[in-house]
């Protein structure tokens, strides 16, 4: 059997989906991830499907433990997202969903940096349609900002790759490190896609503007490709420990005061990415295992949370905490699935987050970063507080908002059910996931110490929520926007740009008026001399010329005789 890169299968599948309708399209949508995963399972480790491009060899299918884990994860995520979106009658979303998942697979199987760059840009271009498909002006503006940031990330990556090619003469995608200019550029490009602090706003800006199904696709791929790329290129880079620690902490403050529940999830996504970034920065076998397995679990439980909030948005048309409440009566299944996702992201024992996040935290202590460990502990309590309690509480409980609705269609519930099962399975029986990790796992999650410590942390966080709520100290859900780092380019930079444009266009007008009047004068001058009445335009009759020739001839004849 020919060893096809999954990206090609997904791209061909997207073409078939584009030209089919109805149940045939649904069949293709479901068949693509299943067929591609089966095809992948038959491919041995190593580098396959190399293509020559000018002087370079593109490695489209580098298969090893790390790329295989992300490869299977992305197939699973694509299948769940496809099932969740089966009811949608929108070709744009179905096609871009498959192209987007295919691009993510292209990136994780890329064996060289040029292939990575191509997949990197394909990720940006294919995913923007999942935001545009909302067909709202606010979504369109957010989509354009998203696209600009993603394309800039790609350009920085390209610059880094070219500098590196010049330095090393090789474009292999192996350990990169920060000790060269090319490495720093590539690190920055990865950092944008990974939502490093101050570079993160594209995520919290655009994901909540996507369609209910689009946000499920988006939550799975872009940031996890960045985690994969960091794990491949920059393991053990110490600055990542501190970047990751900041990433776990600052978003939870925003998450507490944010009203749009999908934006709360976007902030908590940055918080979860922070744990993975810390794990990669620590660079030990246990911490990398923790980072990678947490990426796996995060795709599933964050997808589950986005699916449950997508279901709320789809059914009620509302997503603000201030407008929701009491939905548990009408949407019992969605409520249950959301709670499973909430317990998983909060890392309750027997739910998936517990078996992966704790590896990173134990590694932080082992490697001598007690302050970072305290930060991660703070972030763990905080994520339970907002993603674990706030999201389900304000959507499904709190007060009765008066909304009357019901659970969404079967395909959406089914997709949530699969994700919830995986969350519980990985939490109860992590050994299957551990077997897929890049390094052998020596970590034992279910010791009395770990279980007790985590239970105390989370239960007392819940107690804090209950106390704050009962005492009236908890801030109410309010309508409004909270300014974040994107304020810099949405307000001052925007003002500078529009003011510059206004000044330039003012002077442009003056200058063009001056040029036009100069040209007018010149034109009149030329017209005076060369126009129909002008000196240069007078015509002489041919008879007068003949007369003059005759006169000259006569004069010369007379001169000849004398």
């Amino acid at each position, binding site marked *: 059997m020919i060893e096809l890169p999954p990206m090609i299968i997904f791209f061909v599948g997207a073409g078939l989906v584009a030209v089919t309708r109805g149940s045939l399209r649904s069949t293709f949508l479901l068949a693509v991830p299943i067929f591609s995963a089966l095809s992948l399972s038959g491919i041995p480790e190593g580098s396959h499907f190399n293509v020559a491009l000018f002087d370079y060899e593109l490695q489209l299918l580098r298969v090893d433990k790390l790329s295989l884990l992300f490869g299977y994860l992305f197939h699973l995520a694509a299948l769940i997202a496809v099932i969740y979106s089966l009811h949608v009658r929108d070709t744009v979303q179905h096609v871009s969903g498959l192209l987007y998942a295919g691009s993510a697979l292209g990136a994780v199987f890329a064996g060289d940096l040029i292939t990575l760059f191509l997949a990197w840009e394909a990720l940006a271009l294919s995913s923007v349609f999942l935001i545009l498909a909302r067909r709202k002006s606010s979504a369109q503006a957010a989509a354009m900002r998203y696209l600009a940031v993603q394309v800039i990330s790609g350009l920085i990556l390209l610059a880094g790759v070219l500098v590196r090619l010049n330095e090393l003469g090789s474009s292999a995608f192996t350990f990169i490190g920060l000790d060269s200019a090319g490495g720093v550029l590539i690190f920055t490009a990865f950092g944008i896609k990974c939502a490093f602090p101050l570079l993160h706003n594209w995520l919290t800006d655009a994901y909540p503007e996507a369609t209910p199904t689009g946000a499920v696709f988006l939550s799975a791929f872009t940031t996890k490709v960045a985690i994969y790329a960091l794990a491949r290129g920059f393991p053990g880079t110490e600055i990542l420990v501190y970047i990751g620690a900041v990433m776990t902490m600052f978003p939870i403050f925003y998450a507490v005061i944010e009203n749009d529940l999908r934006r709360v999830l976007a902030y908590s996504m940055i918080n979860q990415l922070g744990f993975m970034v810390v794990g990669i920065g620590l660079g030990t076998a246990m911490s990398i295992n923790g980072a990678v397995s947490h990426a796996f679990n995060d795709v599933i439980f964050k997808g589950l949370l986005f699916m449950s909030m997508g279901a709320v948005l789809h059914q009620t048309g509302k997503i603000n905490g201030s407008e929701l409440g009491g939905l548990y009566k009408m949407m019992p299944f969605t409520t249950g699935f959301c709670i499973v996702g909430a317990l998983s992201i909060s890392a309750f024992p027997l739910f998936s987050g517990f078996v992966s996040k704790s590896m990173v935290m134990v590694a932080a202590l082992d490697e001598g970063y007690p302050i970072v460990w305290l930060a991660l502990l703070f972030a763990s309590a905080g994520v339970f507080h907002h993603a674990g309690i706030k999201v389900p509480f304000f959507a499904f409980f709190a007060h009765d908002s008066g909304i009357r609705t019901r659970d969404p269609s079967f395909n959406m519930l089914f997709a949530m059910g699969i994700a919830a099962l995986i969350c519980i399975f990985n939490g109860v029986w992590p050994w299957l996931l551990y077997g897929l990790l890049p390094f052998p796992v020596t970590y034992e999650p279910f010791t009395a110490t770990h279980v007790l410590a985590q239970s*105390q942390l989370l239960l007392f966080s819940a*107690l804090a929520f209950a106390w704050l709520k009962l005492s009236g100290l908890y801030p109410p859900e309010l309508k409004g926007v909270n300014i974040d780092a994107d304020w810099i380019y949405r307000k001052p930079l925007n003002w500078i740009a529009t003011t510059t444009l206004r000044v330039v266009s003012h002077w442009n007008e003056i200058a063009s008026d001056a040029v036009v009047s100069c040209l007018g004068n010149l034109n009149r001058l030329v017209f005076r001399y060369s126009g129909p009445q002008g000196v240069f335009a007078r015509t002489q009759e041919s008879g007068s010329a003949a007369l003059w020739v005759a006169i000259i001839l006569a004069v010369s004849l007379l001169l000849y005789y004398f």
Partner: protein
Amino acid sequence: MSKQSPEFIPKDTNGPSPELPRIFDNPQNVKRFLIVLYAVCAAVLGLDFVVDRHIEHPWEGLFGFHALYGFTVCVTLVLVAKELRKVLMRSETYYDGDGDD
């Protein structure tokens, strides 16, 4: 106003008989739920005496460290975030009409 999402189809409102009183409509049940929470909290704190823990850092060895830390940071988090709202919060239309695309 912006248009509704193309996926949004208003559903009929015959949910699973929403008029029936549900579990948390009864304040007594909310109280019971909270009592269970308090009891479980007390139990896991009490387990600190019983369980022989294999700690990796001296701070972990303090009695009820995780419980106290979890409670304190959550209260701090919420109170700080509440104050941050005064600095960060703007009206919903704050970014509208900037032509920022």
